């Protein structure tokens, strides 16, 4: 993660669980019993959790009036009709690159935030974190805090045990069902699909995805938890590339805490070895061991240690969001100093404001801006009415009985709005070129009127003829324009007119 060496601490003195000779190939999971914690970070985490969940569960219920025959859902991915609705925006399949662009934006935003603040995403907004947190809340609420839960698991399998366990799992399943249900709502009209799911009238697909997402919510947030972060998620494996010694990460200020020991012992540092930070950790690690892959940067250990420090009347921030650069600066400044207020002061004085403007953050911000500008530009310039023309290839041209030449074109009008008023088609071509559109009416000037299908594609076959006797080049550029009732060109496209080789 950085060029700075990780604090050397003897882990080796921990006893090996099993002797080397018969170490198992497969280890069973050591269950983590995270303890409840109060504090600033926890409050922020609650707020973020509520906001994220509210967003997820409520968004499908937002309505948006789109008129006749179209779903009135503000955010809807309509797979069957191949449309994505997002408030006033309606995306067609060929505009799916907006989705890709949004994902790219998300990735760059993630890079930028990670380089500044470390694993903010992992610890606060990642769905795995949010739902696990929610499930842990339920668990604590029904089975009690860390000690009570450990006792319950070790105790007899009595009525109390089964009641609490089944109650916990029951609530988990309910939350999981709500989660799976909400997922399905993003792809179906929310009120309708809810009614259908509840009355058993929904399609197999709906039930399948409902069950899939509900099942995985239950499995991942209820059972897999920290294992998702440590074994399954690829993100912790390569996020190190985004962080450097100037990123804010959760750290233990070892220069201040070590040597840990009894609070009354003068020779010890500020860490009283109370394990509060370890017990609250949702991934079950000891932050005092330094930066670790398992740490999701949730900051709960910060709250835990701060409350211990508060009780002891010592300055907070033994475990804190800190840059590794400051950590080593403090360590260097306090090297050889005895524990105590002087060491604490010297260590804190050696710190600097984290450098937020660095080549990598500039790079990420630049990429973020560039992609945003491109996306915004593409979005603002996106046309809701397109005309495309495909010239027949076989035959390239047709010789008519009077010796004239005719080309056939397929004109498609892609209309992404609900507007249906017909448009007049005009041909811009050299003198003598004549255009005929099959089976349509003409306007007062004799121009063919093409209907546009509301939110659809209308297709016409257009024949362009040059009379016999007129010379035509092998290829002549022609332009098709669509005019609205006011005579304004609303779309145009060019093609060529093919003639025989002279």
């Amino acid at each position: 993660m950085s060029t700075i060496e990780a604090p050397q601490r003897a882990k080796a003195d921990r006893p090996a669980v099993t002797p080397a000779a018969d170490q198992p190939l497969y280890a069973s999971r050591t269950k983590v019993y995270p303890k409840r914690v109060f504090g600033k970070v926890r409050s922020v985490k609650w707020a973020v959790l509520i906001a994220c969940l509210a967003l997820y569960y409520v968004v499908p219920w937002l309505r948006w009036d789109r008129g006749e025959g179209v779903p009135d859902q503000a955010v809807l991915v309509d797979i069957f009709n191949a449309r994505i609705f997002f408030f006033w925006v309606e995306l067609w399949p060929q505009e799916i690159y907006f989705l890709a662009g949004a994902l790219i934006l998300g990735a760059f935003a993630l890079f930028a935030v990670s380089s500044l603040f470390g694993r903010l995403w992992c610890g606060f907004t990642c769905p795995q974190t949010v739902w696990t947190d929610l499930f842990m809340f339920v668990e604590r609420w029904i089975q009690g805090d860390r000690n009570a839960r450990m006792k319950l698991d070790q105790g007899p399998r009595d009525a109390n045990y089964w009641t609490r366990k089944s109650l916990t799992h029951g609530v988990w399943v309910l939350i999981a069902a709500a989660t799976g249900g909400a997922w399905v709502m993003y792809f179906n009209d929310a009120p309708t699909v809810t009614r259908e799911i509840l009355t058993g009238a929904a399609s197999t697909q709906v039930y399948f995805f409902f069950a899939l997402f509900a099942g995985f919510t239950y499995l991942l947030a209820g059972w897999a938890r920290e294992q998702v972060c440590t074994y399954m998620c690829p993100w912790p494996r390569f996020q190190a590339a985004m962080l450097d010694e100037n990123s804010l990460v959760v750290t233990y200020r070892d220069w201040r805490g070590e040597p840990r020991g009894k609070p009354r012992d003068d020779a010890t540092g500020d860490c009283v070895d109370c394990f509060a930070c370890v017990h609250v950790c949702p991934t079950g690690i000891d932050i005092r061991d330094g930066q670790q892959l398992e740490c999701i940067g949730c900051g709960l250990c910060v709250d835990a240690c701060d409350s211990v420090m508060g009780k002891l009347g010592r300055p907070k921030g033994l475990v804190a969001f800190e840059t590794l650069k400051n950590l080593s600066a403090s360590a260097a400044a306090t090297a050889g100093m005895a524990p105590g207020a002087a060491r604490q002061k010297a260590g804190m004085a050696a710190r600097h404001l984290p450098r937020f403007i660095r080549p990598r953050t500039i790079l990420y911000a630049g990429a973020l801006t560039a992609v945003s500008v491109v996306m915004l530009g593409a979005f603002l310039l996106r046309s809701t009415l397109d005309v495309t023309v495909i010239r027949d290839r076989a035959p390239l041209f047709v010789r008519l009985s009077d010796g004239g030449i005719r080309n056939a074109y397929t004109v498609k009008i892609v209309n992404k709005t609900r507007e249906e008023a017909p448009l007049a088609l005009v041909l811009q071509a050299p003198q003598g070129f004549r255009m005929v559109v099959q089976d349509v009416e003409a306007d007062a000037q004799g121009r063919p009127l093409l209907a546009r299908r509301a939110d659809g594609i209308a297709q016409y076959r257009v024949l362009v003829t040059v009379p016999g006797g007129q010379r035509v080049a092998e290829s002549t550029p022609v332009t098709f324009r669509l005019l609205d009732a006011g005579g304004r060109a609303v779309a145009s496209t060019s093609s060529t007119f093919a003639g025989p080789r002279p």
Partner: protein
Amino acid sequence: MPTKIEKDSLTGTDTTGHEWDGLRELNTPLPKWWLYTFYACIAFGVVWMVIYPSLPGWKGTSGWVAREAVVADVAAAQARNAPMMARLREATPAQIIADPELRAFAIAGGRGAFANNCASCHGAGGQGAVGGFPSLADDDWIWGGSLEAIQHTIRHGIRANESDDQRQSIMPRFGADGLLTRAQIDDVAEHVLSLTNRATDQAAATRGAAIYAEQCVACHGDRGEGNREVGAPRLADQVWLYGSSKRDIVAMISNPRAGVMPAWQGRLDPAIVNMLTVYVHSLGGGE
């Protein structure tokens, strides 16, 4: 074989005893659930192999066959299209064109049916080919380009001898049967060329005009305008079914060729005949 299993000082984990240039590998056990997931996958694979045809000679217990799945899919698609096909069968081509939904369906289906049945002679886009395969994309119709005429041609064919209503035109073999002399044929050819102002020998063309008036007018008309009743092509235009050079024309007068088109009624569903009618009509705009 691993030799030096020792404890890593930083992590407290055993090493595997393998060492590469001083790098030692930690022996971190995989989690159990990982193992069970692996077992579950194997079990799933075994069950799958039993149920589905997985090995040569093994049909699987479910009796699932790819071919039958395709047949079922095709049947489902046909069932889905059945109401539309029924409407297409009942409607006249004019009615189909008047109904946008029916028309779009007919043109889409007609394109496919054309590619399957007609394109081998008339070309992928109906462009035809010199030598007896009329272009369907131009404005020249030997038997008429109205919807009804096209439908009739498709149904009954041309010289197919399959239907009493077939299109039938027979041009006498003026040369082969000795009806005209070689010189006369040459003169008539010059006259035919003059109909489109391409004659090179005016004297011959004038001589030919007299013969034309005797032998050809009945079918091809006074000024070579042709006659659809008998399928006599127009001669006074730029579209030449069998070529426009003098040689081609002489050959046609001496020993005419006559193309054959099968009658599609009875071979194709009436709905498909209607689709083809509408599609062919759309190619060159019909009449």
